[in-house]
């Protein structure tokens, strides 16, 4: 019913290999994009924009980045929080040092700085694998955060060690600082997300993405067939850190406005993004979106449900909320260990065959 594939023929390799091979999906995608860019800014309330949609967009970028590293290249990293901090602090230093520079370039530059730092901390991956590597990336996490809280240069010698984003405009509209409207912030984040997702998708299906996946599936075998593991691993670290850095810069500049390394970019942030990637589905672009949505929107909805609808006291609700999130993660893993994206694939398969499954 939903999917009519009759008459949908592919006549070239490019057409067969496109991101949305089914016409219905493709139109759905255009529709979602149009809705997000044209309709959402009209209807979205400030509360929804600021507390749910914008964090979702920003975390989705981070999850995309981590998914490239873990899902596509198979390198487990727990340094996401610190790499986001690198993006945030680079963004802050650039904003302060070059007040005239357009915020878009600042964010991209912050991403590039993070890519460099990420590559550096990716070096141990050439020798260490699996969980050992995960814990090794924790060294980056703790060291960088320590560096940011200890070195006054990073926070311009402010007495409290907080960094705060000055107001910057884009096309005349403020997008950072307190006077930025929710809609302009939303549009900036959305644009970044769309570009980053496009980038991630096209990298992962090209030569470089296939190299990553070869390394993920079996690095020795990949090396034998001519994939340079050093280049593949380090490029994965660089691309992944770039995305994470961009999300960190956005997180600080347009979302939080003021941040402190230890508090905003601690180890729990690393775990949060990792959860998004795993719950959403390893090695899937859609998975990054679904995972971020689940872990950002889920707790807020649960809170609304328990506190506002059922009138539980907020502390009981908070405890239950933690339990329910835990139980949901377990339930999802048991139902579909490959994440929400795989669940979606199954549903889609069923829909394509429906109503004649046999």
């Amino acid at each position, binding site marked *: 019913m939903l999917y009519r594939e009759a008459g949908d023929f592919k006549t070239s390799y490019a057409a067969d290999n496109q991101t949305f091979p089914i016409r219905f999906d493709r139109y759905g995608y255009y529709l979602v994009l149009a809705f997000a860019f044209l309709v959402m800014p009209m209807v979205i309330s400030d509360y929804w924009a600021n507390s749910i949609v914008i964090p979702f967009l920003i975390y989705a970028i981070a999850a995309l980045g981590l998914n490239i590293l873990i899902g596509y290249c198979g390198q487990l990293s727990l340094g996401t929080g610190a790499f986001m901090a690198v993006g945030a602090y680079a963004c802050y230093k650039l904003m302060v040092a070059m007040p005239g520079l357009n915020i878009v370039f600042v964010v991209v530059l912050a991403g590039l700085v993070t890519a460099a730092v990420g590559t550096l901390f990716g070096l141990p991956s050439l020798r260490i694998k699996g969980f050992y590597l995960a814990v090794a990336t924790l060294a980056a996490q703790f060291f960088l955060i320590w560096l940011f809280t200890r070195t006054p240069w990073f926070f311009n010698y402010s007495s409290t060690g907080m960094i705060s984003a000055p107001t910057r405009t884009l096309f005349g509209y403020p997008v950072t600082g307190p006077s930025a409207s929710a809609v302009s912030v939303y549009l900036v984040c959305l644009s970044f997300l769309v570009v980053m997702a496009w980038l991630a998708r096209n990298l992962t299906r090209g030569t470089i993405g296939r190299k990553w996946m070869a390394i993920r599936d079996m690095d020795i075998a990949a090396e034998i067939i001519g994939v340079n593991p050093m280049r593949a691993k380090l490029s994965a670290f660089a691309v992944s850190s770039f995305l994470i850095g961009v999300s960190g810069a956005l997180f600080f500049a347009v979302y939080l406005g003021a941040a402190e390394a230890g508090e905003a970019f601690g180890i729990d942030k690393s775990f949060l993004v990792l959860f998004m990637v795993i719950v959403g589905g390893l090695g899937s672009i859609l998975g990054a979106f679904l995972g971020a949505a689940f872990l950002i929107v889920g707790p807020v909805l649960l809170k609304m449900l328990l506190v506002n609808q059922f009138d539980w006291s*907020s502390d009981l609700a908070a405890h239950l909320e933690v339990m329910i999130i835990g139980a949901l993660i377990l339930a999802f893993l048991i139902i579909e260990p490959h994440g929400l994206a795989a669940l979606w694939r199954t549903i889609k398969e069923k829909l394509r065959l429906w109503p004649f499954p046999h």
Partner: protein
Amino acid sequence: MKKMTKLAAGIAVTMAIAAPTVAQDLHFPMLNYRTGPFAPNGIPFADGYQDYLTLINERDGGIGGVPIRMSECETAYNTERGVECYQSIRGDDPLVLQPLSTGITYQLIPRATEDGIPIHSMGYGRTSAINGEVFNWVFNYPANYWDGASVIINFLLDENDGSLEDKKIVLLYHNSAYGREPIPTLTRLSEDLGYELIEIGVDSPGQEQRNQWLQIRRERPDYVIMWGWGVMNPTAIQEAANIRFPMENFIGVWWSGSEQDVGPAGEGAHGYRSLAMHGTGRDYPIYDDIEEYVVEPGLEAGAGDQIGTVLYSRGLYAAMLAVEAARTAQEIHGVDEINAEQMRDGMANLVITEERMAELGLPEFGPAFEVSCENHGGSGEAMIQEWDANSGTWNLITDWIEPDRDMIMEMATEDSMSYAEENDITPGCME
């Protein structure tokens, strides 16, 4: 598709919440943290705040006859969740925000200023908000961190007959924005008074402080001042007891001086001192009313087992100041159903006298002070309290001690002016 249905469901839920509210009440939102790593400190404060407001509703029928509406939002001491909470209440006519975390306060200062909602950060938050000409909407009376640091030094001066020359003082601080607050004040005072200041940082959470205490043991300081939070406090007190550091020379800030902090060390904590910005214990007449109107009808917040503790008293005190400010606002504007802007005026003109405190059933509970447009920080006075492990009580051992307010004002002006410059604020009073 899935995302969309989720979104739609969510929108439906929000719509249900955002049902039109008629302002027939006074909305006092609470940004509490009853979960997460700092829950032990957050719970008693939240209970105290809520119980006082319940008492006002039950006993007096609200403020000036208008009932108080409370709403609670759980932040888990997490900045992002704090911002989410703020977004969810800002459209609901909140009168005053108590962010209850320095991190969240920093987030909310620009936002709440933009939205015109007053913030009361009592004994935390941004110290230079004392300068009301720059921070029109932010209040931190009756005392701030720089006051606290200065009060401790004045207390030590008193103990040492007016001279701290050649004394060695260690500052053990939580390595965060909060913990670094007293450093400028203490450094400056060390230059004036000639004591040696050694700063020792503890990274969050602070369960492992062996090295710090070995260092303290080697340095043999005369005094240790602590700016700690959460699990760092009991660990530090335990370690101090372990190295047999004389407890009477160990002084914590007001966030390092509650039952939760001294409890785990048991006997060892006997004699530990901390700042107190208000009285504690149940020996105040108001507790009779709380017993009668709140506890007996079963309206107490939380588990009801925190009544009379230090942080409960702090919550009670914060609520009392908020209610008094609302009363002042009602008097100034001659209306009962005040809005946030009128509440701000009430806070900016708040006068707390000893008579008023006695009337409220809290004689000598807090300092007498006046708030003005130039000074949002009250008097800055604090007392010193000492822990008695045998009876399990905090005893006040001094009267109100004044801080070196001239110096603090000077430093605060400097800091707030640079903030004003960064954010294009023209300092001035609001009319």
